[in-house]
């Protein structure tokens, strides 16, 4: 599941993931992502932006962690934010890793492999 408020990011990152052999479900904001999760969309990994209009990334993953089937799903943040305090906040909320935009295709795919292992 890929969640980002930028249509360009959704298109480019989903293309990279599809090219690498992953099936990608997209959501344009946290609320849409949450609705899809609650609607039964299956996902092995969540990649989300941090700063989004409405619900931000940290609030979003807190909600996702409340869903029993996604309690242990790996969650990666892909964001322009690099502050340690935000990372710590994300970690406490249940995130598995942090990638700072712009991330290269190799950085993204290598990190995904690591968290899915």
């Amino acid at each position, binding site marked *: 599941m890929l969640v980002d408020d930028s249509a360009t990011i959704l298109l480019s990152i989903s*293309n990279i993931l599809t090219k690498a052999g992953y099936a990608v479900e997209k959501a344009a904001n946290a609320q849409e992502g949450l609705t899809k999760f609650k609607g039964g969309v299956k996902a092995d990994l969540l990649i989300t932006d941090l700063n989004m209009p409405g619900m931000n990334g940290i609030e979003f993953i807190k909600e996702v962690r409340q869903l029993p089937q996604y309690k242990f799903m790996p969650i990666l943040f892909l964001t322009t934010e690099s502050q340690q305090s935000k990372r710590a906040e994300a970690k406490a909320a249940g995130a598995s890793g*942090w990638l700072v935009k*712009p991330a290269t295709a190799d950085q993204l795919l290598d990190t995904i492999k690591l968290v899915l292992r």
Partner: protein
Amino acid sequence: MDFNLLLRRATLVALLVGFGASVVVFFFNDWFHTTFLPQIGLPQPLGDAVGSFLIILSAFLAQRAVSVVFYRDWMLGFGKSEAEREGRAGMLLTAAEEVGGELKQVPTFNDVVRGQLRNVVDETEKAAYSITERLQSIDGVVSRMSGFVNASTEGSSELLKRSEERMSNNRALLDTLARYIQQRIATMNEDQESIGEVMKKAESLGTLVELIKSIASQTNLLALNAAIEAARAGEAGRGFAVVADEVRKLSAATEKAVTQINQGIHEVASAIDSQFHAKLHSSSITAEQAALQSFADQLNDLGKSYMEVIEHEADVVRTIGESSQELTAMFMDALAGVQFQDVTRQQIEQVINALDRLDAHAAHLAERIEQMENPQFVLQPLARHLDEIYSSYVMSSQRDSHHGALQDGKTGSDSGGPKVELF
């Protein structure tokens, strides 16, 4: 005008006028009391009072006169200064009103700038999206080419495998052919030797024929002797003479048969020699060997050329396959590079946020000008907005840029971490 300067000027003029009044009183006191007052008929106390009044009035007028002479102003320069100050205050007020009016226009100006910035965001968003879609199209072409290359690679591998098998078969065929050539040469040599042996044996039959011919001749001679002895024996030897005659006839027939056999042997030997001479001649064997070898060489060359073509094709396909993989990697990197737009968008949003704050501060300043006589007005410093802007940054580069502009020697990277971090 400075108060101290005014005080100094007033003191100086007062001293000067006081000194002048003292000199007048000193020199005219006696004339005033003894001559002037009696003439006008005023008593002395009243005359002193009027005199004091006149002296003070004269001193005042003298001060004004001195002020005009020295400072070109009735009030020691204060009047002129005050007029200038009032003029300046008026100008300042006018300027303040103008600045206040302009400050109120700042949001309108910033609206234009914000509009331009939002336009940049929209344009870059569209451009980045379009780039991504085009990259997607390119990837479609690359994927099709990659599929074709993969299929070609498999086909080439199969073709190469089959060609190698054919080459192996050809090599086996060439080996068989070489063995056949050697065998042919050996057989031909053996045949040549065998024919030679036959010829020798045929020639040796001539000796036997001569022997039989000699025996026949001796038999004929013995038969002749036997006939002579039979004639000598008379009647008793008549039967013996018949036998001797028969033996002689047999001897003649034998000689005739031997001659015919001899002739037959020569004819057979001649026929064998003429029949196999061409085939068993060494130059014919060499020519046949050379022809077979040439055929084998050409077959080998053909096989090698074929292999070279196949290997070249395999190289081409492999190179295209590697290029296709490189293209795929480049495509992925190009797609990842599109993230710059999101980074830029957020940076521009920060600038728009700063412009919003500038609007608020401009309005605050305009209000300050309007309430310039309000002592309760508290001016909020611009630095407060700077701190709030700093706290809203989301990138180390923004913080670095902020510190760089303020030249405070700090960096924003301290608060950041690695680009990739696993928890």
